[in-house]
């Protein structure tokens, strides 16, 4: 039974023809679309190495039947950096030495991006550890990972603050009749 999937991956439209309904989203990303940054660890939803954003939410792509994701927007590790600049979470992982072998890192980074978007931990290390518990690191780089997520939270807060200041200045100038 042939199936045709339409996926938007990292902003790019993909059409994937499946002759078999069994592949997971993880399999399609790696083997059909060629994005091998997303890793296959346990393939059973236990390790988090396959974490991607599916319609903006972090999920284990190994447990998503690809057919059921037809029409979805997917963000993988390859889609995080913009114009050659690392995402703040990626930069924070490097600066905080948040990995050793690196196999779990794409999943850790995507999970952290999802966690920060959920906006429920703030910079609280305990809430961050709990919120990252779906991502295992067998090298045990956990202290660095927690520090990196805290650091990324602080960077993103600061950047958001600057953007808010810019908007306020622009609005002030507009009120005073100056060109923005």
């Amino acid at each position: 039974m042939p199936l045709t999937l339409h996926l938007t991956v990292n902003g790019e439209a993909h059409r994937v023809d499946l002759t078999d309904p069994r592949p997971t989203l993880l399999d399609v990303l790696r083997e059909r679309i060629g994005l091998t940054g997303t890793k296959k660890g346990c393939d059973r939803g236990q390790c988090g190495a396959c974490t991607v954003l599916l319609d903006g939410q972090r999920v284990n792509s190994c447990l998503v039947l690809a057919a059921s994701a037809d029409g979805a927007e997917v963000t993988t590790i390859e889609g995080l950096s913009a114009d050659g600049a690392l995402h703040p979470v990626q930069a924070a992982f490097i600066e905080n030495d948040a990995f050793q072998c690196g196999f779990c890192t794409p999943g850790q980074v995507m999970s952290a991006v999802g966690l920060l978007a959920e906006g429920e931990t703030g910079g609280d290390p305990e809430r961050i550890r709990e919120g990252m518990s779906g991502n295992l690191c067998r090298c045990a780089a956990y202290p660095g990972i927690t520090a990196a997520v805290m650091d990324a939270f602080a960077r993103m807060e600061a950047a958001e603050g600057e953007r808010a200041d810019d908007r306020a200045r622009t609005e002030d100038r507009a009120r005073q009749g100056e060109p923005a």
Partner: protein
Amino acid sequence: MNLFDYVRPATLGEALGAAAHPGAAVLAGGTNLVDLMKAGVARPERIVDISRLPGLSEIETLEDGAIRIGALVGNAALARHPAVKAAAPAVAEAVLAGASAQLRNKASVGGNLLQATRCAYFGDPASACNRRVPGSGCDAKGGDRRGHAVLGWSDACSATNPSDLLVPLAALGAVVEIAGQDGTREVPVAEFHTLPGADGDAGGPQLRHGEIVTAVRLPADAARFAAASRYVKVRERTSFAFALVSAAAALDIEDGTIRAARLALGGVAARPWRAAEAEAALTGKAPDAAAFQAAAEAAMAQARPSAEDNAFKIALALRVAVRALTLAAKGTPERMPALPASVFAPTLSAPSPSAPSFQGTAR
């Protein structure tokens, strides 16, 4: 994984028709079913993908004050919903104590209700299992039964239900709404899974083939307990582990007297264990240690270990029930604890990997 047909019906009526096929399995979030298919435990001939069916993803407050939770509502969305947090905080706490953030984003309420046991023998197609193949026997007997039931088990099966969500839902009297080709019906959450019986009957969910769970309804009465409700879960890791034993406790306290109480235990039986005797024992009492101990003992009065290696769960369940009642009496926390349902206090220490200190070991 065996080969299957994949169908994605557009309406509930079409889905009920497709699900009536003898080898059909219904797919919602997929976090349990896809995993069971990879293990060869579930071998559906047809997958009926209901994940986009309209009208099953809403949480609504009904005219009588009940909260109707659509079967396709995600676990994370359920835990974040303002009406659920306000009326049934123990439900939110239980959801957040289960699985991982990734799984909670995908797993559905209906799927959670139908989640299979985590008994290792059920999960291994090479083992005999009455729950997987009725009448085939039980290889857990004589094997590892550390996590197995201490209430309501039989010679046929001693597996436990793994859900956290179902424990407070059972305590608060929630009801499952079920659709079939012949109409709709309702079953209390606390009775949705039948207990194992004799002659290889392992019990299981009360869902006839072809039926689909459409919603879970929390009665308006749940809100009277909102100020004093907790879920407590003891597991072998701090996070991302199934319960050894858990308890949902909810109290309605006025002028130092318990007007009504709700208590259910998780990890002890094939279904969330509503402890009606304990609830009755608490009614009219002062919320103190003696009342909580007596209630816990009433809840566990019929308990017996299903194997030597799970006798500890009876003592543990007594303590978890007392702890849940004690914490509930202190009042529902204003903010969700950093470690939901945990018996451990947060450490709150921030890591400082840039300046590792080895001074502590240099004495």
